[in-house]
């Protein structure tokens, strides 16, 4: 009896080693909506001289509904995505110097809501079952980690008109115990954020004409201060060039 039990244990350990080392350490990520399934990538054109600067006016983050310290990493990622559309001439991050910009400026307020669900309860139970099975069930029991992002972009034109854009994306990483790694969470967040921002930029580009310099005159507001400064040099190129605006990065 003892010999049989000993043999079974050895056999179990061999199976454990084999299953965990030969192709059973798997993980995959599902993201909705998938950026790869975009049917019609949006593309518009804008004259170079018609482009105006974009100034970050506010950036707010929440996680599972709780306010968080703004992440410069997320802010830079959003700004880079906007920059890649080539819709605006310059992008000034939150707190940047705006003194040298012209009068026609678009201000941006961004809200980025993250929702994280690591399925702690079911993961704990599954972990207990996996441990009780001496890890033999680890290749067939998947663990899940959910992440969703909702980005809201509020753009204010120089004449006071405001437009709001909202995009949402969600994803789940499915993994087995031996495939878990901290980088998979980063990969999930990266893919979900990318899908969310791509959707947001598609919406933004459809309003390209709304943000051209000639789309609205400066408001007739009373002068409240006078600034004396050096005269700006004239642009070197007299002929305006056309800039393509799209969500695909410039070559």
């Amino acid at each position, binding site marked *: 009896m003892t010999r049989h039990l000993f043999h079974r244990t050895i056999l179990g350990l061999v199976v454990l080693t084999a299953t965990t080392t030969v192709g059973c350490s798997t993980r995959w990520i599902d993201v909705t909506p998938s950026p790869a399934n975009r049917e019609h990538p949006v593309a518009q054109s804008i004259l170079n001289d018609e482009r105006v600067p974009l100034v970050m006016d506010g950036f707010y983050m929440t996680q599972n509904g709780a306010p968080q310290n703004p992440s410069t990493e997320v802010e830079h990622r959003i700004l880079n995505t906007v920059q890649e559309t080539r819709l605006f001439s310059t992008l000034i991050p939150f707190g940047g110097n705006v003194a040298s910009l012209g009068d026609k400026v678009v201000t941006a307020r961004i809200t980025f809501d993250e929702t994280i669900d690591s399925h702690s309860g079911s993961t*704990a139970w599954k*972990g*207990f079952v*996996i*441990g009780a099975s001496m*890890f033999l069930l680890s290749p067939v029991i998947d663990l899940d980690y959910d992440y969703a992002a909702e980005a809201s972009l509020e753009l204010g034109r120089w004449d006071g008109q405001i437009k709001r854009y909202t995009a949402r994306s969600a994803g789940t990483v499915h993994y087995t115990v031996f495939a878990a*790694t*901290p980088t998979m969470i980063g990969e999930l967040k990266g893919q979900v954020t990318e899908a969310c921002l791509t959707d947001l930029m598609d919406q933004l580009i459809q309003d390209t004409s709304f943000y051209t310099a000639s789309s609205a005159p400066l408001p007739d507001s009373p002068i409240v201060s006078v600034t004396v400064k050096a005269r700006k040099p004239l642009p070197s190129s007299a002929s305006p060039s056309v800039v393509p605006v799209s969500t695909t990065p410039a070559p």
Partner: protein
Amino acid sequence: MPFLARTLTTLALMLLMTTTTLHAADISPKITVGTQEVGLSVGYMLPHRLTEDHTTKQQGPAFMPYWMMTLTDPIGNSWYRGQISLGAEMVYIQFQEPILTHGVGFAPKIKYTFVALDRIRPYAEFAGGPFWTDLAGKIPEESSEFNFVLMAGFGASYFLTDQVALNVGYRFQHISNAGTSYPNIGLNASLPYGGFSFYF
């Protein structure tokens, strides 16, 4: 005991060598889902004779290398806020009393680590698995070499850096053969231990 003392001293010196750049002020370890932990615990087994049938005073050093995988983000928002990790450990016990014998086991292990105190992290753990020992047959409590070991206990980790922690803890340990042969009175013991962990 001198062997145990030498082992613990060696472990302490290894730790000091590997943590030469400590920054005591800013240590707030970020243990996320998928973070792995490997470590070694060393302790000394002290017997508990819980019934009149228990007569053996088994004791000796125990060595427990282990691996753990963090499965969850911190759960809860109060003092009990913590994370669950799953892993396994090897158990080697050198029974120095009553007869110089040995025991080797493999035990899947689940651990709940309290994270509210930041760099000092108490934990509770449970482990159990097969255990072989040649002490069986030489004592009245055990008749078969193949047994099972069950361990439950608690401890605390003190993070020296984001990745290295010192651990101290206590376990209650039970060894028996689950009725696969008789007599099967079983062995019970306390196992205070110390060790270190490396997170990656």
